[in-house]
């Protein structure tokens, strides 16, 4: 029954109209809990589209983090494990070591990957684990209500930097993607975004390449997505995307930081 309803929703029967876009089957038919305008839902959809188009749904295992995307396993129609906060890349490491012919990815936010999980991130990449790490950087802790993240910009107001992040108290924003790009174990490090349709297309290419590299056993692929947090930033989605371009990109410029030799 559920299957029938799902089929109907995937292929709506609208007379005389051509279906030009539909939800990938790999993205489960569940209502996102994400706030309106949040980049997570777009990245989820693109990631699942890529997995479906590569026809690797049956051979993929994902690892969800703690943070806003803690519910990723409710949306992603592949086998999933929910990791402890910060440990997704350690969990993914073990899954890949046990199942080397499966495609393994972790999906982590900035608090998860670049604060509490920094050691796991660095060492997973340094070992060159043959997995994909998707890193969503929106410069704030969304799930817990908008606290400072390691990637929070100087001067940026959060609930724990109410007058703006200062060097003296909060230190520098952590450019962990630049750190990771220095490690010989990584194959591919890129920074993408989802604030425009073209950016989404570029992200899709980056994710597709990452799975191709994983198939070729090239080493760790690390895809940062500079994203937004309209709720945490206290902006409309449109304002947030404009703010992202103006303020995030100068510190976190999009583009490839490392490509396979």
């Amino acid at each position: 029954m559920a299957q029938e309803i799902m089929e109907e929703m995937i292929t709506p029967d609208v007379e005389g109209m051509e279906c030009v876009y539909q939800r990938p089957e790999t993205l489960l038919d569940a209502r996102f809990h994400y706030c309106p305008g949040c980049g997570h839902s777009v990245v989820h959809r693109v990631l699942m589209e890529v997995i479906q188009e590569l026809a690797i749904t049956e051979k993929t295992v994902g690892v969800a983090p703690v943070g806003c995307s803690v519910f990723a396993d409710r949306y992603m129609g592949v086998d999933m494990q929910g990791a402890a906060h910060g440990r997704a890349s350690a969990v993914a490491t073990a899954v890949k070591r046990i199942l080397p012919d499966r495609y393994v990815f972790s999906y982590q936010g900035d608090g998860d990957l670049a604060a509490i999980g920094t050691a796991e991130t660095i060492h997973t990449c340094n070992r060159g684990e043959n997995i994909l790490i998707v890193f969503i950087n929106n410069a704030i802790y969304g799930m817990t209500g908008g606290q400072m993240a390691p990637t929070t910009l100087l001067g940026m107001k959060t609930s724990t930097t109410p007058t703006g992040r200062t060097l003296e108290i909060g230190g520098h924003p952590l450019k962990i993607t630049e750190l990771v790009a220095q490690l010989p174990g990584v194959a591919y490090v890129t920074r993408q975004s989802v604030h425009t349709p073209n950016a989404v297309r570029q992200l899709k290419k980056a994710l597709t390449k990452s799975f191709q590299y994983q198939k070729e056993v090239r080493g760790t692929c690390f895809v940062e997505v500079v994203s937004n947090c309209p709720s945490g930033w206290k902006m409309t989605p449109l304002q947030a995307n404009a703010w992202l371009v103006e303020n995030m990109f100068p510190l976190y410029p999009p583009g490839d930081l490392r490509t396979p030799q």
Partner: protein
Amino acid sequence: MADIRLMKGNEALAEAAIRAGCQAYFGYPITPQSEVLEYLANEGRKRGMIVLQAESEVASINMVYGAAGAGARVMTSSSSPGISLMMEGISYIACAELPCLLVNVNRGGPGLGTIQPSQGDYFQAVKGGGHGDYRLIVLAPSSVQEMADFVYDAFDLADKYRNPVMILADGALGQMMEKVAFREYDPKDHMMVKPWATTGKPSTRPPNVITTLHMLPEQMEEVNRRLQAKYAGIQQQEVRYELLDAEDAEYLVVAYGLAARIAHRGIQLARARGHKVGLLRPITLFPYPEKVLKSMAKRLQGILVVEMNAGQMVEDVRLAVEGRAPVQFYGRMGGIIPSPDEVTEALEKMITTTVTHPVEAD
């Protein structure tokens, strides 16, 4: 023909893990258990095991989570401070009901402590240690032979109950060399099908999800009820203990692990002086052998609990005995091993100070 060798406890445990079909080991060096990692990095890898020296115990335990979730027979080992670091991950593993073997070669604490043997982690192993209501099945070896034997049992129990199992040893059991005979064990006869594992989703089933997140309290309580029912079943089915010199005993020593071996020598010395003393050695610390203690208590003049800590298991003895017999405690802390003479002395002190009461008929 039994395969008999002279080995350190840590090495015997590692060798048994290979023979038990353990597919992966994730760990971090710490004295006094580093031989497990070293042995497996050599012998284990040669014989096909995935052995990864992780960046920390935190990473190790989460790798165990990932590998167990992917369906592998998997283990880690550490010693006290390292086990403390693993506590969050162990709580997750217990909640996600992932079978695995955890080994704690207990050293003296608290803090960085000492590297000498201790039983100071009893509470942590038996009562929880990590957050939330969960239980490990805890096996306490008292010889190098049991360091090996309990590995097979631990993996089988872990698979049977989808529950983490801990072998709680101590630095002496890990380091000392004894004769060990490896039993016949073919992993193929013991490996269970794990349809819940995340191995990649065929089109014929919905995705498998390993998770510990249940946002609705009603759901979380349901998960807790299921876990508690499982633990109750384990308490019914899996209690193990050893009774020595107990038939005519008027006094009983309760001790586990290394302390039990020392206590048994102390009991023999006391018997040579005419005291009727027996030994109860709990082998499973959870589930605890409380029924046998309860049934024996009313015909005992006194119970002496001997531990290498400040008195932890003694609380479980008192709970089981419920006042039916006086319970005293003797322990050494911080990595000091009590001598058999100390046990005999503590026994004689108890015997002379305990007011003899009429023994109830069974």
